[in-house]
């Protein structure tokens, strides 16, 4: 894995480009969202270090040619009752991974709702990846690879079957996202903003989000 633990920012000195992206994780609870991220960020599965207390917010840096991509990974609560809060999380996100469990058809159905919602409500350029997790449990498979693949193609999503347990495709899916993300000035957090945030718009959406909705 490229750049593990090397999340340092070369201060000011431009060593290639540094892009920072916000990535949200969506999916039913218990499909292994956090296991996937922990595998990607810490290389761990079930053998957690003492230092890792939370897997809700993590960052990881990957190197891509001359660009350093820093992922800021925001986990969301997957329970149905918290579904309506999701827009507050994916607001301003440049990427999303929608996770389902290949041994559970319902989670795939939920994943489709997430994709639809993202396409309708998230920022238009958001890169969406579909991850069929728990690929190591292929003998209990309920969601066929071809079915998911066809769905992903239809909706132009990145698609991979992953396994947090065996680490299969875990880094690959993040790398694929990194490749697809636009590495323009806008994505660069180290660059100063061109202009102040348009608060007329921003403020309303945020206050509407947390208070009036």
């Amino acid at each position, binding site marked *: 894995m490229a750049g593990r633990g090397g999340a340092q920012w070369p*201060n000011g000195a431009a060593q290639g480009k540094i892009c920072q992206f916000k990535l949200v994780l969506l999916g039913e609870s218990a499909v292994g969202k956090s296991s996937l991220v922990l595998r990607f960020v810490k290389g761990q599965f079930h053998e957690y270090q003492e230092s890792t207390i939370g897997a809700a917010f993590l960052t990881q840096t990957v190197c891509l040619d001359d660009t350093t991509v820093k992922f800021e990974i925001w986990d969301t609560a997957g329970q149905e009752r918290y579904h309506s809060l999701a827009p507050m999380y994916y607001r301003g996100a440049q990427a999303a991974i929608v996770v389902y469990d290949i041994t559970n058809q319902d989670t795939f159905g939920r994943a489709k709702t997430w994709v639809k919602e993202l396409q309708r409500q998230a920022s238009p350029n958001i890169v969406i990846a579909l991850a069929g997790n728990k690929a190591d449990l292929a003998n209990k498979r309920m969601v066929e690879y071809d079915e998911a693949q066809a769905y992903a193609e239809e909706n132009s999503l990145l698609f991979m079957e992953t396994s947090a347990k065996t680490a299969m495709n875990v880094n690959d899916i993040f790398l694929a996202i990194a490749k697809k993300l636009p590495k323009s000035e806008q994505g660069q957090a180290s660059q100063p903003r061109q202009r102040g945030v348009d608060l007329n718009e921003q403020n309303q959406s945020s206050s509407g989000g947390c*208070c009036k909705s």
Partner: protein
Amino acid sequence: MMSRRSSKKGFHVDESDLMCKNGCGFYGNPGWQGYCSKCWRDYQKAKQVQPKTEQIASNRSKRLSQMGSGETAPSFSKFEERKKQQSEKRKNTVKSIFNRSSKESSPSNTPPKKDPVAKRVSVESQQVGGEFAEFLKKLRKTTALDISKQVRAFIEKIQVFADSPVEELSEMVQDFYQIITDRINTLPVYKGMDQNTIDTLMDFIEKYILTRIYRIVFCPVTTTDEEDDLAIQNRIRSLHWITREQIDCKIYENDAESSQLLETAITDIIQMDSKRAPQDKLASIVQCCNHIFELLRKSTDGPASADDFLPALIYVVLKANPPLLQSNIQYITRFANPTRLMSGEAGYFFTNLCCVVSFIQNISAESLDLTQKDFDKYMSGEAVPHTSHNAYMCDGLRLMYQNLSTLTELRQRHEKLMAEALQLQQDMVEFKDSFKNEIDTVLERNPWTLRPRKSKADIDAENSDTELLPSPLKPEVLHPVGQ
């Protein structure tokens, strides 16, 4: 907020001014130009209905150019005069509040401060001001001078605009962050500063400005923040019955350490209100969340995910019922440097807090998997779900419950003892009865009758046998030798 109102009250002298200017019969408030709260809002609304959008747009561009150049271009009529005076004054008496930093360069130019603005500086502001000045000392003098000049001018300006709608104030502050960033990137005075120093500088500017203008911008009268605060507070109060199970919360306080952590998390979130700068408020949120993660580590295997974290945060907020929650959230949204909120750990946790508030406001029977009937019952206080055994409580209450359960156990034991004693008594009675019965039956079976003796046994009677016996010994009387 209250203090702001009262300080404004100090200005008014005339008794008749007490009533609302509109003559509606309610008391007016000098802070609202003599209107009562209702008429004041109407008045404000009426004022805002006017071509507001264009006005804002033009105001903003003007403000941008003004602040950028540090000069006053006469702007929209309303504030023109006041502002001119202000800038005039500023030019004549550029007394930096960071005098300490500029002292060395111009020792003669520091007359004793008699500025009315400076006089009102609070303890918090003085402290932050001191830290800021310390930091500025480390920079080049020209840089420090420019920064302090900008900041000072901006604070004065905000104080002039104090009565504007909060959206405009927010815009002014956000514009100011941008202006400073632009200056740092373009002006030669700022050349050669590394990113860390710039970040710290921006941090200090944000902290200092907002600490200074806190009273103006936190929960301003022109907004409904105060009502929203009360609404959420009452809402949380009416939801006191929510149990962990109903929101999938997986924190337990089986031991002293866990309940200690939970209490710390609750204190953290309550403390947010006592902080002034947005980053300090955010730090309180982050601290609270970290304590929640520590708490979750005990009940979940492996690092906690958002599935566990969000419910736990909801639970903590419900139990804490933090003061002025909406005001604080609004304040942070309006005035914090937006980079803080859109990214980073603090941004994530802040988003979570906003989600929690949204969830609490929209909580329904459905979101708790209850029937509407049960939900209404719980809300009206008719019924209480019976899972209080693991509900959060304070030390005293916990001790009480502990004692109560001990007493219950004691009572049970006592009752058992009583029952056993009664049983014993019963057994004894039964034993006695059965014993008696048995004896009776035996007696019945073997009745014994007193038969008359066959021969009379008269011990003292004379009979022939006694004659065969030797005669009884007779006491021998011994005479003393001497007689």
